[in-house]
């Protein structure tokens, strides 16, 4: 598939974000630059606490950046938040379903909030239940769903409004191998329809399988970016696991300052 000559679906430049608390301020994103062409999948990798969820939060209008710009689907996330929201679908790291309602009711809620109308809404709900294998459980309360079923419903809810840009924050955590593959197929189908996807994951095989491009976030910056094959070649590594380990060695990324370098040597 060809990448259209329109502007990228996600453009991030110089993004900075820190969390302030009584204990002081913690810099999480320290100048992130990222471009995701429309109709492609980018996997955002990084160790726990690297700021992947924070980055998704800024791009999905949940969090405000301190500095830098971010455009999603051509709209500025800070100044045109509503236009961004109308174009995106977000599956956050925390499953976002209403436990007291049934699966079908959760999807109906999304259809109503997207103003799909009765007939179209009902059709969309049935279609998504089918696609995610939830038809049998459709009328059961979500509280009785397994973790994996909730996650699938979560994803289905994200897709009700046919978003053009989809954020998936560790979408397959807790899914069994078959469900994970079902989800991969869903992602591929979405991309085939022209949807742009930014996903974070800790399963590097997932990034290898799905991503057109991989970006590694570490120490508040993107420390490496490229296709899975390019990254493996550059780091002379057999798997993305090795690339990940090489790039994200604690306590800091490639631009380690001399002191920590010596510290590390003494430890060895």
């Amino acid at each position: 598939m060809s990448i259209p000559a329109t502007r990228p679906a996600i453009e991030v430049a110089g993004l900075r974000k820190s969390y302030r608390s009584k204990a002081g301020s913690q810099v999480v994103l320290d100048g992130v630059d990222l471009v995701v062409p429309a109709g492609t999948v980018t996997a955002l990798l990084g160790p726990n606490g690297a700021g992947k969820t924070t980055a998704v939060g800024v791009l999905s209008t949940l969090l405000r950046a301190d500095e830098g710009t971010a455009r999603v689907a051509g709209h500025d996330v800070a100044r045109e938040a509503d236009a961004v929201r109308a174009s995106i679908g977000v599956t956050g790291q925390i499953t976002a379903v209403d436990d007291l309602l049934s699966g079908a009711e959760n999807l109906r809620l999304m259809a109503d909030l997207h103003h799909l109308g009765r007939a179209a809404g009902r059709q969309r709900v049935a279609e998504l239940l089918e696609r995610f294998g939830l038809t049998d459980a459709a009328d059961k309360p979500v509280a009785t769903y397994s973790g994996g079923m909730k996650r699938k419903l979560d994803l289905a809810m994200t897709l009700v409004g046919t978003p053009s840009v989809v954020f998936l924050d560790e979408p397959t955590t807790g899914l069994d191998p078959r469900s994970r593959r079902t989800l991969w197929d869903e992602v591929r189908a979405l991309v085939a329809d022209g949807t742009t996807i930014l996903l974070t994951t800790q399963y590097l095989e997932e990034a290898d399988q799905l991503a057109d491009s991989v970006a590694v976030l570490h120490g508040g910056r993107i420390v490496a970016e490229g296709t899975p094959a390019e990254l493996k070649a550059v780091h002379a590594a057999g798997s993305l696991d090795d690339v990940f380990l090489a790039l994200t060695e604690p306590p800091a990324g490639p631009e380690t300052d001399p002191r920590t370098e010596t510290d590390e040597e003494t430890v060895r």
Partner: protein
Amino acid sequence: MTAITVTAPARAGGKPLADVRTMFRRNLLRAVRYPGLTLFVVVGPLVMLLLFVYIFGGAFGAGVAPGVAPGAEGRAAYLTYITPSLLVLTVVGAGQSIAISAAMDAAGGIMARFKTMAISPGSALSGQVLGTVVQSIAALVLVLGAAVAIGYRPQADAVDWLALLGVLLLLAVAISWLCVALGLNARSVETASNAPLILLLLPFLGSGFVPVETMPGPVRWFAEHQPFTPIIDTVRGLLAGGVGLDGATVAKAVVWCVLIGVAGYLWARSLYRRERRV
């Protein structure tokens, strides 16, 4: 191939009423699926009704209605005195349940999901408030029904009932907005359920269960100046058919409700817009 088109979709922030209606329906559905929360709202006032009337009523009656004999006559007088207070407490109890559900929404991801959607801002909270107001009315009917069942006889005429409905609706809206804010402000669902407890205490520190004239100086001063005293006096006066009710009390009650409601609304709105802290 669908390219990214740089046009603002028509629905961005589009249909506030439809969104509020959708969120309202969600909350009604939750209340139906999980009736425990509504029952929990009713049980407190019902237990208090029985406890206060049958245990304390015989002795307290003389304190609220001079000249009444202890025993059955006192119980009847005390029932008349506290039923209005219990109605007000019922509304506050419903506030506790909205605080819990707001905190649950914020703790789970669903509120974050709503925030990333192009729905009209505030519809998530307004829907919850509307749902709670309906829940309050159901609870009020149950509590008032129980009071009537054990012998309470309101003296209100049609106009009084209408005015009463208006005051209780206003109170329910105001308390709901305040409690949504308390729920969003809480760090966990547990603290959210405790936050409105202070509101449940206020009727006791006012004209709810004994006349304020019987209280010692500083407590009495507080009782005379806190919002629940004029609110309870208004409800009590309307149920008594307007006996002993003056316009100033009603005005105070209405002003307090509006103040609580507006403050709660503004606070809730800013909490909803704020980034979620850990």
